[in-house]
């Protein structure tokens, strides 16, 4: 009954989406307010029905109704409640339902909070949202229905893939989807602007918070996924340049570029045509990511060919939306007037440079991810493109970008003073040189690359601090004035500084972890001591434990430093009986920003156990950086200008247009 209700609610949502696709467009064409306002009601109703459908699936999983295929294949009655819930999106059908739920959520948000939008713009935006929604509802209903029943229900389910039975699954996919799908809003705004053939600074002011929101979630989602892989997969890697990771990195790079170009558009009314294109590309890359992950094309081109229903359907959606929006762009972009002039050396110029490098980085990931697929389809040749390729091509792109980052905020709009900016960055530059010199002396004979890279990171962080110091007049003005100015400083300025410092901090983490990571690999017996990076790890004993739906072998290590005992670490290996699969649960000990990491291997015939111990210096900074970036994003989002400022300039813009 619940399954049927959920299914029916989804069908109704499709019906609503189809209405929303057409009626508001007609309303906007005929200037009919009532028809345009239909979009608002349908968007909210869609949210209600999709929400009901999603809730139905959650209830089926929670009550372990194994008469539903999706529950039978991915759940187990003994599974802890949290994993029963997160298991809803730990499979293809459920994750697609989450995808459309989030899409409906964003549509509902625009409907609910978009009352300050011009009516035609809102009608168009919601109509475009509904096109996307209709396509994906159809996809779910026709190829990936999560509510299908089994004729003869089994007593027990097959359990969820044990690797996914982790708190990471509760956070990572929803965050990532909030990011992916959030970019649909900027896409819809871009298409709506192209349909209307009109775009102004107020448009950018509406688009920017939505883009920022999506970007924040995508940043956190990627970072969370990276940390999850780090502790769950058991060999301490945190980024693998896996096609699935690349699929999320591409929209992130394009979205970061979009954020910056939207700033130029909002402030200076320039880069309109480019911002529109980036909005389209960012969401297109999100769709591409969905296609790559959901079609099975990555596992093997042949797997895709043997069961093509889903893949071909998403490919059609992909072609329809990307092709359609780009054609519309080609036809209409020339009618958008360019405005806002600037010299090459200016804040705009710096942001354009940022866009150039981020777009190139995005293109690099794109070609690296898709080239092997394309080559195999076209010629049958198989090649691999992995981490060494990306490290080689990606790093050179980021070095100039990082050098440029501190200059951007210090340059004035329209025409900047590069020499002046450089002078103001002297302190940051000196800090960077000191960092390089100290590290060089300290690690003499080691890698020469690491000190330089950390110097660069220090420069970026120093640049962010310089920007704040300049804006508040720190050291130049009396302290009281500084505090006052700091209070008056727009939150967006704080946000920029935090986000940029986050980039530098992440870089420090990445460089430290990859350069000074120490590891111990060996077979240990109870009583043995391993020495890693000055720590002594003594294996006390190995025991067995019974979990709710697994058995685990737990090893107990006592960690000591300089003869003093610090802590106990208990890495384990879990065996999940239902799937006959096992996972390694690494033990982590955090010391400052560094971590000790132990993961277990097999027991040898002589009773020894294979053990891998790492000391990863500054590793937490890798994820602290993105968290800081996201925090900067939140600060910027809470800026007064974006909270309450939007309606006023909108009216002003309209009034000016009337005057023209």
């Amino acid at each position: 009954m619940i399954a049927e209700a959920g299914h029916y609610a989804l069908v109704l949502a499709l019906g609503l989406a189809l209405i929303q696709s057409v009626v508001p467009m007609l309303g906007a064409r005929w200037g009919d307010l009532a028809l345009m306002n239909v979009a608002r009601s349908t968007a909210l109703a869609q949210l209600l029905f999709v929400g009901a459908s999603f809730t139905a699936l959650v209830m089926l999983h929670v009550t372990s109704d194994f008469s539903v295929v999706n529950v039978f294949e991915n759940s187990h009655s003994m599974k802890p409640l949290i994993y029963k819930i997160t298991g809803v999106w730990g499979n293809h059908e459920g994750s697609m339902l989450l995808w459309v739920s989030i899409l409906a959520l964003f549509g509902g948000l625009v409907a609910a909070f978009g009352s300050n939008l011009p009516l035609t713009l809102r009608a168009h935006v919601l109509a475009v949202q509904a096109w996307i929604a209709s396509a994906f509802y159809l996809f779910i209903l026709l190829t990936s229905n999560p509510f299908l029943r089994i004729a003869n229900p089994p007593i027990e389910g097959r359990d969820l893939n044990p690797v996914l039975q982790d708190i990471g699954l509760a956070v990572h996919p929803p965050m990532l989807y909030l990011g992916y799908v959030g970019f649909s809003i900027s896409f819809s705004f871009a298409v709506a602007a192209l349909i209307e053939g009109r775009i102004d600074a107020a448009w950018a002011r509406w688009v920017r918070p939505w883009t920022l929101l999506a970007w924040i979630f995508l940043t956190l989602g990627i970072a969370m996924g990276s940390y999850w892989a780090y502790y769950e997969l058991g060999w301490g890697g945190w980024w693998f340049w896996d096609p699935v990771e690349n699929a999320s990195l591409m929209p992130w790079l394009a979205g970061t570029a979009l954020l910056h170009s939207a700033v130029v558009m909002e402030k200076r009314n320039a880069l309109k045509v480019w911002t529109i294109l980036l909005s389209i590309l960012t969401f297109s890359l999100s769709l591409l990511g969905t296609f790559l992950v959901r079609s099975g094309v990555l596992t093997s081109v042949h797997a895709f060919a043997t069961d093509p229903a889903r893949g071909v359907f998403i490919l059609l959606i992909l072609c329809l939306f990307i092709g359609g929006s780009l054609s519309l762009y080609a036809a209409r972009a020339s009618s958008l007037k360019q405005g806002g002039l600037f010299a090459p050396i200016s804040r705009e110029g710096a942001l354009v440079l940022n866009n150039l490098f981020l777009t190139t980085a995005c293109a690099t990931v794109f070609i690296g991810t898709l080239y092997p697929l394309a080559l195999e389809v076209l010629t049958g040749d198989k090649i691999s493109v992995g981490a060494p390729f990306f490290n080689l091509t990606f790093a050179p792109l980021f070095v100039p970008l990082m050098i440029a980052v501190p200059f951007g905020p210090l340059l004035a709009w329209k025409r900047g003073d590069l020499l002046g900016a450089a002078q103001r960055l002297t302190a940051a530059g000196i800090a960077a040189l000191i960092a390089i010199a100290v590290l060089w002396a300290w690690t003499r004979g080691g890698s020469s690359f690491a000190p330089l890279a950390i110097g660069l990171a220090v420069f970026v962080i120093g640049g962010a601090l310089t920007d704040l110091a300049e804006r508040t007049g720190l050291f130049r003005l009396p302290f009281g004035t500084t505090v006052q100015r700091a209070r008056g400083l727009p939150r967006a300025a704080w946000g920029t500084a935090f986000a940029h410092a986050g980039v530098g901090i992440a870089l420090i983490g990445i460089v430290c972890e990859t350069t000074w990571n120490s590891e111990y690999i060996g077979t240990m017996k109870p009583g043995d001591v391993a020495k890693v990076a000055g720590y002594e790890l003594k294996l006390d004993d190995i025991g067995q434990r019974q979990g709710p739906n697994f058995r685990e072998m737990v090893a107990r290590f006592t960690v000591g430093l300089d003869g003093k005992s610090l802590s106990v670490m208990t890495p384990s290996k879990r065996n999940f009986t239902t799937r006959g699969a096992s996972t390694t649960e690494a033990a982590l000990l955090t010391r400052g920003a560094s971590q000790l990491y132990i993961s277990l291997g097999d027991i040898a015939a002589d009773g020894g156990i294979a053990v891998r111990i790492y000391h990863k210096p500054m590793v937490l900074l890798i994820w602290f950086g993105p968290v800081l970036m996201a925090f900067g994003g939140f600060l910027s989002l809470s800026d007064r200008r974006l909270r309450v400022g939007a309606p006023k300039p909108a009216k002003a813009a309209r009034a000016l247009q009337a005057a023209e």
Partner: protein
Amino acid sequence: MRRALAAVALALAVSAGAPAFAVQPDEIMADPAKEARARELSRELRCMVCQNQSIDDSEAPLARDLRVLVRERIAAGDSDRQVIDFLVARYGEFVLLKPRFNPHTLLLWLVPPLVLVGGGVALWRFGRRRPAASAAATSGAHLTPEEESRLAALMSEEAPEERRT
């Protein structure tokens, strides 16, 4: 990422039954310098039955065989290049995680620099063309007193938001 995890889990379930380690203690070479070389090389080589994993990271038995093979070649006195050539001769280009530069991979290697250079040139040309066109466009633009006053009103409205711009 989730799919990657799933794929890894699948690979584990299919290949080993119980997951072993990436580099096993018994594989490690006695000479630390040679072991370091072996690890470096392993990171460049793909475990062919896995999804995008190097043999250094992978737990599959095939990856173990390849790791042992790499160490055998190093022990036999091969240079890094000879080891790679040996593996490519045996398993094809697919084993390399960083494809070689050849006609097949021309586009792959050239796209990043071409996008960067192409984008840079386009920007430069765009920047050179704009000032001339814009000078003509803005030279005659004077605001009427009414527009001036509205502008002043707007500016004061937005004044607190950013002083330095």
